[in-house]
Structures are given as structure tokens and as C-alpha cells.
């Protein structure tokens, strides 16, 4: 049975990737199981300078999902390179650096610094709903996506993944813009903008007022977007949004994902990535599928 997948020339031992921001830099989950189990680890969103993030509370549960408003708390790209990459290099899993900037120059600068650092791919987070400047503002306009992708590509010496926001009228426009800008792969979806109010105190539960919705609740939106994007671009796709078990992962692959990322599911089950990988294998055994790539985009539309 083959579980290897290839994303823009980078070979992953299996299609399971950790979703940025839910897995830190791998240290904590790495205490629980070997990160060699993973195809790749996509690390917490990085910015050029260190960031404190948003005030707490930063998370709450909703029906079948969660809202978060971490706001890109991170030690900055240089500290990441210095302290985290050497740790991650102990494992065979590939490293994806998720980067977010306030300006286009920020992204380019980070792409430069990270290119020789040992990370295997860059993921441009142009869709974070929890910061005021940059972030989602870049990701909801096709022209900006085209431009920022072109610029970053000039500086990146490793493959660039553009991470798309679901908070748009037409996801295919955004995907096509990223493709036209030279993106090597796409990942989707980031979180949907949501809000929850505590009816006892009448205050928003999150100090940031709004937050990003993820988890099982968003899965149908994510599957639809992956399907739509797969129809309109040739780029490899990393699908995510609510994947909780092997069946969910298979559904994303049938919709057109070449690999899948697991985020919120890690919180309930720290071994989620391992058990989702096993679930894919079980499905492949049951349906006599030899190569996991044979699932990609195989949804049957009659």
C-alpha cells in the first residue's frame, strides 16, 4: 500500500499534515507520539517580529465547532529558525512554515529568511481572521492575492502554498488568482469568521469579539470549497476543515485534496492525526485501494 503523496515536489510519507496553529511547533504532541507518524507538520503562524497575540479569552466551544482568536502569538521568524527548526529536523516529517505579515514586504522578508533554513515549504497565511492588519484583508481580494503571491514567489526558494480564506463570495476566483501568481500549492480552508455571546454576562465570549470557526461544524463548507477549487485549478490541494476521523479525510481526498490537514480534532484526541491516518488505511483496505493518490478527486459526478 502506498501512502506517499507529493505536494509541489516535496514528498510526504503520508497525507496527514497538522493544521497551523493547532500543533504549536510540534514539541507538545511530539511528547505523546513520534512526529515521524506525520506527513508534515505545519507550524504555528509566524510573523517577522514576535507577537503577543490577542487578550484572553481566546477560545470557546460552539455547537460542533470552536471559535478561536489567538491572533498569531509567536516568537517571530528568527527565534523559530534558531530554536524550533533544529528540534523539528530530528524527525522525518516535512516542515511547513506558516507565515503572516502586516505588509507584502513582511511576507517577502520571511520567505527569504526561511528559504535556506531547513523548512520544506512555505504556507502563506493570507486568511487569518484574528488580526487587524494584513491577514484576512489580503486573502479576500483576488487582485491582492495575485500580487502578493507573485512577490513572495520572487523571494522564496522553496515551494509556496497559498492558504485560502473561506470568508469570500467566490473561492474559485481566489484560487485562480493564487495559481496565476505562481503558487505551487493551495491549502484551504482557514477559519470562518464567527461570534458567540455569553447570555449571562451579555459580553462576547472572546475578548476579541469575533473569532475563527473550525471543527466538525465547518466540514461541509470546506469540502464544497475543495471540490470547487479542484475543478478550476491544477495545483495540488491540502484540504482541511473539521476532519475528525479517517472517513472525513477520505471525503476530502475524493473532493480533490492531495493531502489533508488536521486541526481542531487534535484538541479532543491528542492522537487524532495517528488515528486519522489509520482510518485512511482501513478504508483503503476495505475498498482494495493500493495507492492513496488514487482517491484524489475521484468523486463521481454523473
Amino acid at each position, binding site marked *: 500500500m502506498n501512502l506517499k503523496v507529493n505536494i509541489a515536489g516535496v514528498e510526504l510519507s503520508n497525507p496527514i499534515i497538522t493544521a497551523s496553529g493547532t500543533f504549536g511547533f510540534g514539541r*507538545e504532541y511530539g511528547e*505523546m507520539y513520534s512526529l515521524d507518524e506525520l506527513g508534515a507538520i505545519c507550524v504555528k503562524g509566524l510573523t517577522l517580529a514576535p507577537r*503577543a497575540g490577542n487578550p484572553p479569552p481566546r477560545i470557546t466551544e460552539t455547537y460542533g465547532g470552536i471559535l478561536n482568536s*489567538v491572533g498569531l502569538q509567536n516568537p517571530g521568524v528568527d527565534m523559530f529558525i534558531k530554536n524550533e527548526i533544529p528540534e523539528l529536523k530530528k524527525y522525518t516529517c516535512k516542515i511547513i512554515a506558516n507565515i503572516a505579515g502586516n505588509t507584502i514586504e513582511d511576507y517577502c522578508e520571511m520567505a527569504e529568511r526561511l528559504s535556506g533554513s531547513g523548512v520544506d515549504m512555505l504556507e502563506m497565511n493570507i486568511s487569518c481572521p484574528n488580526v487587524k492588519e494584513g491577514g484576512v484583508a489580503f486573502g479576500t481580494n483576488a487582485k491582492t492575492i495575485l500580487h502578493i503571491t507573485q512577490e513572495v514567489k520572487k523571494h522564496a526558494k522553496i515551494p509556496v502554498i497559498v492558504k485560502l480564506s473561506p470568508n469570500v463570495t467566490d473561492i474559485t476566483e481566489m484560487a485562480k488568482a493564487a495559481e496565476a501568481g505562481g503558487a505551487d500549492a493551495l491549502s484551504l480552508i482557514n477559519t470562518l469568521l464567527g461570534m458567540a455571546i455569553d447570555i449571562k454576562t451579555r459580553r462576547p465570549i472572546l475578548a476579541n469579539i469575533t473569532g475563527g470557526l473550525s471543527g466538525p461544524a465547518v466540514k461541509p463548507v470546506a469540502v464544497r470549497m475543495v471540490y470547487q477549487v479542484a475543478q478550476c485549478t491544477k495545483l495540488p490541494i491540502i484540504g482541511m476543515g473539521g476532519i475528525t476521523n479517517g472517513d472525513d479525510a477520505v471525503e476530502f481526498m475524493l473532493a480533490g485534496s492531495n493531502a489533508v490537514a488536521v486541526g481542531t480534532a*487534535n*484538541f479532543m484526541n491528542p492522537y487524532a492525526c495517528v488515528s486519522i491516518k489509520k482510518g485512511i488505511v482501513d478504508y483503503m483496505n476495505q475498498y482494495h485501494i493500493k495507492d492513496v493518490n488514487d482517491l484524489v478527486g475521484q468523486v463521481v459526478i454523473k
Partner: protein
Amino acid sequence: MNHDVYKCKVISKKEIAPNIVDVTVLCREIAETAQPGQFLHIKCGDEISMPLRRPISICDTFEDKVRFIFERKGRGTNHLNLIEDEIDILGPLGNPFTISNDAFCNPVVIGGGIGTYPLLKLAKLLEKPTVYLGFRSKSQVTLEEDFKAASPNVTVATDDGSYGYNGFAIELLKDKIKQDKVDVIYSCGPTPMLRAVKELAEANNIRCQISLEQRMGCGIGACLTCSCETTSGGTWKYKRVCKNGPVFWSTEVVL
């Protein structure tokens, strides 16, 4: 790593006050390594409907048994209350209280409401600590006997005076500090109480540890959702309650 996910058999479960449920489960791994102040991250329902675990303090451990007490508050704890057979627990998590009986000869333990539960195991390990337990009213008073078995110096206070000392436990602490030497204060409870304890301790130059609550995702330090504000400020302003806490030195944090 000293934590993992365990399926823990429920040995006993009873409502010890209105909406307060006292549970003992079997789990040698947690019982043997847990330290006072650490917590459990508990799966209360199926992962589709409730993607988050709920943090609940370890109240006590003995041999292969772990005891925790929770208040039925919302969806999660109401559902937890229905589980009769086996509970899925990630733990033990977080930093425990610092116990150093040499330097801290005269410890005071002060808790309020559900914040009293993480203090029981602590009180047991300290040498005859002075213990102040505050509750809203008589019907809420819990664990009094357990604390009294741990120390001869236990006083219960109720806000409405329906039982024990009439008033806030913090008043007892104020008096104590005036009269006696206090080397260290350990506290857990509602934020206004912690704020008062912190102020009092710092005004009197007493070392003080407080246990904080925050909404959590992963529980193990990876997701950065459970922040509390620290006194360091700047870009290192926020620490993780799950990993750097839940127990902090009062001087480390801003309440």
C-alpha cells in the same frame, strides 16, 4: 512526558451539594504521578458535538484512585454528569503548587467555591496549614471534613453567614496576617478573591501562589488559547495557563 490519555473506570460518583458532583476514578498512572494543583482534561461528550475537553482540577489521589469534583455548569459538565462507566481523561497536566516545607513554615491555604477542590491534596501534603474555605452559603459548603482531617486549623466562611464565619474568607486571611507570621499563601477561587489575596500578599511581602482558570483548547501547551496576562509585558505578555500554570506566583501575573 508524564501525561497521557486514559480510559478511567468510574468507581464512585455522588452529588455532594446542589450541582456539585464528586467523582473517583481508577487510574494508577495519574494517581502515582499527580501533584497538587495539577489538572485533568476531560472528554465530556462525543468529539463531534463537543470538540473541546473540560479542565477539572485533581482534588485528591490515593493509590490507584483519582478524585475530582466538578460543578454542573453548562453543556460539558452536564454531560459529564451522565457518564457512568468510563471517563476519557488526559492528564495529569500543568504545573503544581510549589511545596517546600523548609522555607515555608507557616502556610495558609485559602480557597473559594469550586476553587477549594484543587487545594485538598495540597493541604494534606503541607504541615498543619491554616486553611480558609469560603462559600456563598451553607448549602454550598463541601469537603469540610476532608480538610479537617488534613489539618487542625480549618475555618469555613460563608458570604451570607449561614455557616461558620460570617463574611469573606479574605477577611480571615487579613486578620491572620495581622496576628501571625505567614510565610506562604496558596490560593484558588474566583478572580475577585484571587485579586484580593494577591494584593494582600504583595503588600505584606508574603510569597503567594495562585491557581488560575482559563478557557482551553489542547490543554498541553500547543494551541496558545489559554493565555493569562503576565507582568512581563511586551511581546511575552501572555503565558499559557495549561502549561506555564495553572499555578503561578502572584507576582508573575496581572489579574
